[in-house]
C-alpha cells in the first residue's frame, strides 16, 4: 500500500503540473480582466486538435509543434478578445463574460466537430506510451516531459509578469484598472495581450491532454469544471495558487483513489474545496493576496 501511495503522489504531482498550465491562463485572464473564461476548456481541446493535425498531416512532433500552436492560439485569443470580450460593458462584464465565453465555446465546439468529426482521436509520438524505471516506479515519459514543460512555461510566465515592463503593466491592471489608467497604462491593450497569453498557454496543456487522452470537442466540458475548481481553490487571479491547487487536487484525488476508492476521489476533492473556502473564502491565494504580490 505504501508503494501505491507514493506512486499516486507522484502521479498527482506530474498531472497536476499539466493542469496548472491549463489553469494558469484562466486565472491570468480573470486577474487582469475580471473575465471568467468558460471557453478555456475548449481552447485546451483546440490546442490538442492543432497539435494532432500538425502531427498527423505534417509529421511535426507535438512538442515542436508548440512553436506553431502557441502563437496560433495567441492570435485566436486576440481575435476572441476583440470580437467578443472588448464589447462587454465595464459594469457587468464579469457576469456577462460567462455567457459570452460560453457562446464562444459552443461556436468553437461546432467548428471542431465539423472539421474533425465527433470521433475520438489521440496524439501519438514515440514517448507517449514509454516510461522510465526510477526507484521502483515506472514514470511515464509524457507526464515527465509535460511536467517539465509546464514548469518552464510557468516560470516564463512568471518572468514575463515580474521581470518585464509589460508585466508591470499587467500587475498594475491586476491591482486596479482605474489607477492603472491614471498612470498612463493602456489597460485595453494590456487586457487584449493578457487574454491572448492566457489562451496561448492552453496550447501546451492541450497538447499534453491530447497525448494522454482520447478526445473530441465535447471533452472540454469535463475540463472546464476542473479548471474552474482549480482556480477558485487557488484564488482567482493567482498564478501560484493555480499551481498549488492543481497539484493539491490531483494528489488528493489520486491518493484517495488508491487508499480508499476511486468513486470517492472526486467527492473528497470537492469536500476539501468547501472546507478550504470556508476557512479561506478567497482560496489559497485570494484576490487581495494576489494583488498585493
Amino acid at each position, binding site marked *: 500500500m505504501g508503494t*501505491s501511495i507514493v506512486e499516486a503522489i507522484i502521479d498527482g504531482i506530474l498531472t497536476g503540473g499539466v493542469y496548472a498550465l491549463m489553469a494558469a491562463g484562466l486565472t491570468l485572464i480573470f486577474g487582469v480582466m475580471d473575465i471568467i473564461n468558460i471557453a478555456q476548456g475548449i481552447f485546451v481541446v483546440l490546442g490538442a486538435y492543432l497539435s494532432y493535425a500538425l502531427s498527423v498531416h505534417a509529421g511535426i512532433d507535438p512538442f515542436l509543434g508548440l512553436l506553431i500552436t502557441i502563437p496560433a492560439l495567441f492570435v485566436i485569443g486576440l481575435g476572441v478578445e476583440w470580437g467578443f470580450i472588448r464589447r462587454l460593458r465595464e459594469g457587468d462584464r464579469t457576469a456577462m463574460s460567462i455567457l459570452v465565453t460560453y457562446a464562444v465555446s459552443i461556436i468553437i465546439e461546432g467548428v471542431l466537430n465539423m472539421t474533425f468529426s465527433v470521433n475520438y*482521436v489521440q496524439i501519438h509520438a514515440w514517448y507517449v506510451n514509454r516510461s522510465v524505471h526510477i526507484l521502483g516506479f515506472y514514470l511515464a515519459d509524457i507526464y515527465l516531459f509535460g511536467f517539465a514543460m509546464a514548469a518552464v512555461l510557468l516560470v516564463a510566465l512568471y518572468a514575463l509578469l515580474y521581470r518585464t515592463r509589460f508585466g508591470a503593466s499587467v500587475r498594475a491592471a491586476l491591482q486596479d484598472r482605474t489607477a492603472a489608467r491614471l498612470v498612463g497604462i493602456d489597460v485595453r491593450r494590456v487586457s487584449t495581450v493578457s487574454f491572448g497569453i492566457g489562451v496561448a498557454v492552453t496550447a501546451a496543456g492541450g497538447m499534453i491532454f491530447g497525448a*494522454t487522452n482520447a478526445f473530441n470537442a465535447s471533452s472540454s466540458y469535463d475540463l472546464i469544471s476542473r479548471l474552474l475548481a482549480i482556480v477558485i481553490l487557488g484564488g482567482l487571479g493567482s498564478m501560484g495558487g493555480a499551481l498549488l491547487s492543481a497539484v493539491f487536487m490531483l494528489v488528493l484525488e489520486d491518493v484517495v483513489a488508491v487508499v480508499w476508492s476511486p468513486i470517492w476521489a472526486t467527492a473528497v476533492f470537492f469536500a476539501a474545496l468547501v472546507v478550504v473556502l470556508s476557512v479561506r473564502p478567497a482560496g489559497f491565494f485570494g484576490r487581495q493576496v494576489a494583488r498585493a504580490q
Partner: protein
Amino acid sequence: MHGGKIRRGSSRRRRSPLALAALAAGGLTASAVGVAGASGAHAPKAKGAPIVIGVSLSLSGDFSADGQAFQRGYQLWAADQNRAGGLLGRPVQLDVVSDASSPTQVVTNYEKLITINHASLLFGPFSTLLTVPASKIANRFGYALVEGAGGAPSVFANGLHNVFDVSLPVVDNLVLFAKWIASLPPSQRPKTAAYPTSNDPFTEPQIGPAQKILEAAGVKTVYSHVFPAEVTDYTPIADAVAASKAQIVVLGSVDVPTATAFVQAFVQQHYNPKAFIATGGPDQGATFLKAVGASNANGIMVPNGWYPGYRNASSQKMVAEYVKKYGGTPSGINSDVAEAYSVGQVMAQAVTATKSLNNATLIKYLHSGKIFSSVQGPVQFDAKGMNGAAAAFVFQWQKTNFVQVLPSTDPNSVKIQFPKANWGG
C-alpha cells in the same frame, strides 16, 4: 457506440440549459427532418402524407459520436424503407431533434415530437441515461418506444409496458466471456481478475454476473472498484490494477477515452494481463484502433451483439450501403448504426403486420412473442420489453482485424488469442 451495448448507460458530462440555449442560438443544434426518398426498381412508390417518426438524438455533447452514428442508422433504414415502398404505402419521414446529451432536454424533445410535431411513431434516443426519461414520456402519451441503446436494467425497472429494446440485454454482455474463462482447463485458467468499472448504468450491471461466474470458477478477485464517470486522471486507478498483477482485466468502460487511458497506463507500467476485455470502446472500429494504436489493440476483447462482419444478409446489405453512402471501410462502422437500423426494422415489421399506426395496437403486437428479424439477428421481446432472442458475441482485435471469437462453437468464430499478445506485439 458499440454494438449491443456501448454507452447505453453513459452518464458523463451533461449539458446545462445554458448550453442548450447557446446551441440553439448558434444554430448548431440540428433539428433535422429527413425524408428518405428513392423508390426501388420493383417496389411500388410510397405516396401520400408521410408517416412522421419522432427521434431525439444526441447530436452534440457527450454522446455526440454515438448520437450521430445512430442518426446514420436511422437514416439508412428510412431510405431503405422508402425505397421498398414505405410503410403502409406511405413514405416515412424522420423528425430528428437534438437533445445535446441532456436527460432534461430529451423529455422536452419527446413532448414536442408528440404534442407539437404530431409524430405517429417514436424511435428511442441513445443511452440508458436518456432512454429512461424518454420511455416515461412515451408511456404517458401511450406511445411505443422502440429503442436500440437502452438495454440496462434501469430502463426496465419502472415496469413500463411500452419500451422495447432490440439489442442484447446489458446484463448478459460479459457472461459469454466469463463462461469461456471458466471452461478453460485449470492449468490454463487465469487465477486472478481485476474489475475496475465506471459508475454507469450500462457498465456496472455487466460486472456482477461475470465476477460471480469467475469467482465460482476459482478466479480470485484482486481488484474491484467503481470509479466516477468524470475522472480527471485514470492513471492511479490503472496503476492500482497493474499493481494487483491480475491475470484478467474486466474493464467497465463506456467509451474510447476510458479504454485507451487504461491501455496507455498498462503499457507504461509494462503490465500485460493474459486477458483484457472492456465493455465499451474497443468496438468503436477504426476510432479505437487509431486512438490506442494498432499494435496495442492486438488481443483486446469486447462483448457485443453485432459487428460489421456479421453473417446476416440484411446486415451485410446495410454495411454495403453504409460504406457506399458514407465512405470508409466496414471495420470502421460503429455498432450504433446497426442498433438504430434494427429499431426501424422491428417497428416496420410491427406496423406492416398490424397494418396500423395505432400505438396501443403496436404495443400489444410487440409483446405478442412474435420473432422479428433485424440486422443484429432475431428479436423477441419478453414481458419487460427486453430482447430475449438476442445473440451474444465476444469480439477481439487480432492485429488490425476485428474478429468474432466467441461463442467458440459458432462457425463464424475464429480462434481466440489467449493469452493476449504483448503490448506492441
